[in-house]
């Protein structure tokens, strides 16, 4: 049975590229354009991986991570932050919020899949 990934980014092109990369690796993909929409789409569905941007309208990635971690079903789900932001303070904030890892854009598909392979069992 294939695993499901939730991709959250306000950039259509980034969503498309991440989605393409994960689908090639056999994932089913759900997409959200911001944190709020992602929470809504993830409701009641088993999700094995979350990849989210940081800066998004309506609800940013940091808030999304906190809200997901508050849900029992997302307590141990790998959540990767995929963002242009590379400030150490932001990374630490993400770590404190419950992010599993931090990837700075632009991402390399092969590298992304290696990271996903490490965090998704």
């Amino acid at each position: 049975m294939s695993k499901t990934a939730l991709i959250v980014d306000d950039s259509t092109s980034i969503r498309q590229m991440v989605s393409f990369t994960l689908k090639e690796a056999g994932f089913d993909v759900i997409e959200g354009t911001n944190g709020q929409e992602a929470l809504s789409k993830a409701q009641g569905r088993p999700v094995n991986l979350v990849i989210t941007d940081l800066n998004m309208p309506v609800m940013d990635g940091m808030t999304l991570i906190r809200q997901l971690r508050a849900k029992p079903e997302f307590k141990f789900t790998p959540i990767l932050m995929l963002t242009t932001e590379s400030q150490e303070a932001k990374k630490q904030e993400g770590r404190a919020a419950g992010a599993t890892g931090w990837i700075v854009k632009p991402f390399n598909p092969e590298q992304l899949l290696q990271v996903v392979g490490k965090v998704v069992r």
Partner: protein
Amino acid sequence: MLEKFRLTVDSPLGPLPNPHGANPSGPWGEDAASGAAVLSGLTSCLAVVPVLATQLQEVMGEIETGILGISGSFEDMARRAREAVSGVFQDDSTTAAKDSRTGITHLVRETRETLGRLLQRVEQTSRISAATVRRMKEIERRMNSLNRTLCDIDEIAKNARLLAINGQIEAARAGAHGAAFSVVATETANMAKHAMAASQNMREIIGTLSAEIAAGSVELRDRAAADTEDAARSRAEVNGTLDTMALIHDEMQTAMEQARENSRSLARDIGQAVVALQFQDAVSQRIGHVVQTLQDVHGAVQSILGGGPPAGSPPADNGAPARDWTVQMADRYTMASERQTLAASTSRQARNARDPRDNVELF
């Protein structure tokens, strides 16, 4: 004078300068006419700022549309390449695929062995045929010998018959005393006659058998020769076919390996293209930040021209609005490259390129 304003509006890192230099007596100095001209020019310049912002946003939209199209094309290319490769390999790493590859090699070897065994049997049959022909020749020779023996028997029978005739003549001369001898002579003549008839029959049978054996021997020899010739030709043909099959198999293996390498190469190229195409997201964010700052600058200048406090920027910090703009821009930035550009512009710091290998950190 207007040129000075253009310069400062285009670079909102510093305060709007007083066009009259250090004269602080009024917003635009003492020269009312000059001030009106400045206002007019500045208002005219300001009008294009929202247009420029809209233009930038539309350009970014167009670039994003283009990138989505290109990215979609890459996706299609990758899918088609994957389908093409999987069509050839059926997942080449599977046990079935490996079995298939070794199976072809095995099949060629097995066919050669089977053909070898078949040809051995043909050659064995040929040898047996040759031996049979030799035996038939021997039988023919013995029959000829038998014929000669029959000739001897014929000669004996002729002599016996002649002897019988002489015996009958002598018996007739003897009269009544020779009657019994006459019976013996007559019986001897009959026996000689029967012996000659039997010899003749045997000679005919032997002649027929000899002819049949000779014909069979020739036929068997010809068949054996034809079989040997056919077997040799078949061996050459099948060996040629197997060599071609092995060659095609090797070429297919090479083509499959090439296709596999092409697939890997395509995946690498698409990966690099995906990295390159993400410039659009970074550019979109940077231009978005520029547009927001332009809009803030526009609002601030409009407020100043209207005589009110600067809008769109934070409250003045110790009378240093230049720092407010810098801080506001820095707060808005999301990329190290943006911050480096700002820092380099304000403090002439050198820009540091980020090592792309350091872009992943697992907590």
